[in-house]
């Protein structure tokens, strides 16, 4: 199984690449969005700013959106999840539009939300026992999907309840960082990959 991390140029991919490893898997890092979709499992990692990431995505945006809609198993983490939406208040440029809705700032006094927060109201096999109950977040923006049915888990920061995870077909998006959520986060990632295999 080939797992490809689309690298839009910002942050730490080492921990994530390591966390996705397993028997019979090849984990690759690919900066070209067109080449990135020639894979069995696509990962959009989580560090950076929306505008810069959307610009890196732009040349392959339509091809990637088409591949995901056609059933390419995909995981978007944090900013990677936000790129599944139409656009973001954080920066200009288009997202992939897999999930209709925009990325908006958290309605909270204390932002960014940095730290460990609980994952609530889960309704998906990915959150079966042993459940990932608490995970690491580092975000000022969140997805606001037009259709709440895509949301498979929620979290709350101050008074704002926001989507912790979404699913559309074979695309999973998580606002938290499983690769930074210690052993339970790694187990979650392994479950996502195992489901797609």
């Amino acid at each position, binding site marked *: 199984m080939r797992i490809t991390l689309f690298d839009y140029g910002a942050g730490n991919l080492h921990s994530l690449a390591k966390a996705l490893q397993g028997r019979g898997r090849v984990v690759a890092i690919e900066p070209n969005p067109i080449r990135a979709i020639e894979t069995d499992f696509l990962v959009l990692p989580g*560090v950076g700013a929306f505008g810069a990431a959307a610009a890196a995505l732009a040349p392959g945006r339509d091809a990637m959106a088409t591949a995901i809609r056609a059933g390419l198993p995909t995981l978007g983490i944090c900013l990677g999840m936000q790129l599944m939406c139409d656009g973001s208040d954080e920066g200009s440029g288009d997202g992939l539009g897999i999930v209709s809705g925009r990325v908006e700032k958290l309605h909270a006094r204390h932002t960014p939300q940095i*730290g*460990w927060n609980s994952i609530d109201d889960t309704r998906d096999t990915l959150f079966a026992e042993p459940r990932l109950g608490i995970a690491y977040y*580092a975000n000022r923006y969140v997805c606001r999907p037009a259709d709440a049915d895509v949301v498979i888990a929620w979290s709350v*920061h101050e008074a704002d309840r926001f989507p912790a995870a979404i699913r559309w077909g074979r695309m999973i998006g998580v606002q938290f960082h499983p*690769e930074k959520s*210690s052993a339970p986060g790694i187990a979650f990632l392994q479950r996502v990959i195992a489901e797609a295999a």
Partner: protein
Amino acid sequence: MTLTRRLIVCLDVRDGRVVKGTNFVGLRDVGDPVALAEQYEREGADELVFLDITATQEERATLLDLVRRTAERLFIPLTIGGGVRSVEDIAAVLRAGADKVGINSAAVRTPSLINEGAARFGAQCIVASIDAKREGDRWVVYTAGGHTRTDLNAVAWAQECAMRGAGEILLTSIDRDGVRTGYDLALTKAISTVVDVPVVASGGAGLPAHVVAAITDGGADAALVAGILHDGVTTVAALKSAMRAANLLVRDTAA
């Protein structure tokens, strides 16, 4: 539920080894950073900080190699501080495997570095690292590892850092660093009440009660500890149970 209060373990590193001193001087070797990082994750630390306390250009390559080796084995957030002078330095540290970058002297010299870093990499990975020393009824910012006095008021500077896009403030009391008499609660409070980004209290932890006080009295989101763990004075588990006993929400980890 809501965000838990964090316990952050800091390893001062120099030339690939963990060292610890008092008031920024008198360094002692206390171990291998990668092994210690993994151990602290297992014990329940919520995050780790590597502070490169010399960061000469020759040692920079050693640090980046250390970050790479650590990132492949550590699955909690890792912040790197020390010697970050430019956007290129921020990029290099993040590429090597850091999740956040602490900027200290360079931000004082070139405040726009915070804006540029936040715009390019996201605010969540830009940590304004502030070393403050009390002077009468105020605190003054020092740079260069506590050696150089500036004219900046620490409270005003923290506000400016947050305004420029820093996602977090790592606030170290130079007076308390390594002396284990407790965090500077007044300093922590003065800053946590005026910024909306998380404040990490640093410098002075000697007892579990000090960690609790940093959060309850100082208003910090997180407390940073170093020497008391490296010297075996206490453990991550003991500190977290003290936090739990004080009704602070903390992340539970399987023992």
